[in-house]
């Protein structure tokens, strides 16, 4: 035990450069991002490479990616808050915080994607209840409130302690963050636990609604056979669980290497990695079933979508990003004799799965949209806005990276300021 703690503190020193580099990298990405976002809001969607055939592109892919990350992270946190899986206890707060930040990024992406973002409130003022999208936006409201409440209750004991320990401005901040509820008696803590559990139970259908609903946005579109499948919302949820778990795995490994690691923590990492692998395998199986049915049916547009995915200009997103780096390599790392107990490799596997799911998201959005609704549709009118080829332009890339960097910074600040990594108070049962 002693020996391990020494190596941990050594690795802590070795890793000291990582966080400042991360912050600088985020800031460097954020600057052009802010410029690009300004261009987008002054020029409108003219600044993008989107068209009338592929009206949804990189931003929508990021949107479903982050909404998925959020729902997946929250659902994994319920393993602790609802199902009482002791092993995962240390990461409950991290999971909820991750869910909250991911949701905010996701919502910003879809806000940025609107042709008239200044009218977003129309969804609340004039909702059309036949539209899955309208339902979605209402669910996000509940979900944000729920995440905030859950996070608050999970952190409250530590917020109270911090408020007593610190002085000056931080003291004021933590006092404010407790919302004046600073009772730390056993009965009040027990009551908190009950609420955490209740909110977790309530949150499961909401989180499933949040991302299953996002899947349903596509699943109800009969114009695109590739989307038009009842399996789609389920695929969304499973891949969300994989991506949420994968990012948690990566972060937990980092915290572990930084020096908060114990034998239990390592066990937790191994279990989490297996869990992620399980979700990933389930996701691949569902993908396989989808393909099986599609290939059996041989509906021309369906087949053409597969052809675009597998042999189109971005074939490598499917074969290399999604399958090789996003599935085969991480699964091998998680199950291979030599790497399955190594924190470092497991963390790397988590990162790969997390990034690989983005390939999944891109391939959900773009290939079906590149298909002509009727043969000869593209040639009928010559405009580059009516084209089956779509590649995001510089503005789309910079805005996206900037938004992601902003999210990373927010996430990082939360980790530094809020008691998210601390786990002692969690152990109170």
């Amino acid at each position: 035990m002693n020996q391990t703690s020494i190596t941990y503190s050594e690795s802590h020193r070795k890793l000291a450069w990582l966080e400042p580099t991360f912050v600088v990298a985020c800031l460097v990405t954020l600057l052009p991002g802010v410029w690009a976002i300004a261009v987008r809001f002054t020029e409108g969607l003219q600044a993008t490479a989107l068209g009338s055939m592929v009206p949804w592109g990189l931003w929508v892919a990021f949107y479903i990616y982050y909404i998925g990350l959020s729902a997946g992270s929250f659902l994994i946190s319920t393993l602790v808050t609802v199902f009482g899986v002791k092993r995962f206890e240390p990461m409950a707060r991290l999971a909820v915080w991750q869910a909250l930040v991911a949701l905010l990024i996701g919502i910003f992406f879809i806000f940025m994607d609107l042709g008239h973002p200044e009218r977003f409130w129309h969804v609340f003022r004039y909702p059309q209840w036949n539209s899955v999208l309208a339902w979605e936006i209402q669910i996000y409201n509940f979900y944000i409130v729920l995440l905030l409440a859950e996070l608050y209750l999970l952190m409250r004991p530590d917020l109270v302690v911090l408020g007593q320990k610190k002085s000056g401005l931080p003291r004021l901040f933590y006092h404010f963050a407790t919302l004046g509820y600073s009772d730390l008696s056993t009965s009040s803590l027990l009551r908190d636990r009950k609420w955490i559990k209740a909110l977790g139970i309530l949150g499961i259908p909401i989180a499933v609604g949040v991302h299953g609903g996002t899947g349903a946005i596509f699943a109800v579109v009969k114009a695109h056979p590739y989307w038009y499948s009842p399996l789609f919302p389920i695929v969304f949820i499973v891949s969300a669980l994989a991506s949420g778990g994968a990012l948690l795995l990566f972060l937990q490994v980092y915290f572990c290497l930084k020096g908060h690691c114990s034998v239990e923590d390592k066990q937790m990492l191994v279990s989490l990695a297996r869990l992620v692998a399980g979700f990933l395998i389930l996701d691949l199986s569902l993908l396989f079933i989808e393909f099986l049915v599609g290939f059996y049916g041989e509906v021309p547009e369906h087949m053409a979508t597969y052809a675009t995915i597998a042999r189109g200009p971005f074939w490598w997103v499917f074969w290399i990003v999604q399958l090789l780096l996003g599935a085969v390599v991480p699964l091998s790392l998680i199950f291979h004799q030599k790497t399955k107990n190594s924190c470092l490799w497991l963390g790397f596997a988590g990162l790969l799965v997390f990034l690989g799911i983005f390939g999944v998201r891109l391939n959900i959005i773009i290939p079906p949209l590149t298909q002509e609704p009727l043969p000869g549709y593209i040639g009928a009118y010559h405009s580059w806005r009516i084209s089956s080829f779509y590649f995001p332009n510089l503005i789309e890339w910079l805005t996206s990276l900037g938004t992601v960097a902003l999210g990373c910074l927010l996430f990082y600040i939360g980790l530094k300021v809020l008691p998210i990594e601390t786990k002692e108070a969690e152990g109170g049962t």
Partner: protein
Amino acid sequence: MPMETQETLEQLVERILGRRTFLKLTGLGIFTVAAANLSATLEAAKPKLTVKRRYGMAIDLLRCVNCKACTVACKLENKTPPGVVYNPVIEEEFGEYPYVQRRWFPKPCFHCENPSCVKVCPVKATYKRKEDGIVIVDYERCIGCRYCITACPYGARYFDFGENYPAQETAYGQIPSPEFHGEYELRQKGKSPVGNVRKCTFCLHLQDAKGKYTRPPACAETCMGKAIHFGDFVDGKCIAHGCDLNELITRRRWIRLKEELGNEPNVYYLL
């Protein structure tokens, strides 16, 4: 004391109604509400009897010569910007030499009886007009999410990205466009319909206050082969090119595109 009151209250309810009756009544209430809702939904799903007109087209493919005059006339009439076209002529070449064939057909919005685009709009910005079945976009309501573009099986919807023709700098730029519910206005940067989804309106602006066409939609009017019969399916009367619409589709063989999706287009292609 409060215990007793509670008991008497319960007893009172039991005595007057009986537990079963109470439950039955509650059940009945829920059932009635549900049934009312269901019947309202079914009612809404039925073809509307209140519809006064149902505008549509019968496009005679034997008469169409692929001159694309409809596309051009539409662009001029509606002053659509680059990348927006309400009535392109879809053209396809297929078969192998020497048995090569071409087929083509003008494709406006079909103003479906069961439009997929209307269903998905989150803000009721696009809707089917009760009085004549024309599917339009309320530009001031539309948030530009483009869900309807992805949902339309016929690719009838286009996004106005805000681009202009080079001629915008000339006097052409000062000609107002009829796209504001009959109001002729200038399309300006950053203002609707820029940033909105646009589509064929059956030249709605050519209707008078009573909903009658003062002249036919541009594509039908300009068609030199008189291929585009435009009219009202309720009384069958053609506004462009003579005959009775219902008689045309009874006498001739016709197809509607992607019939299997159940959208029930109001544009028929006569073979």
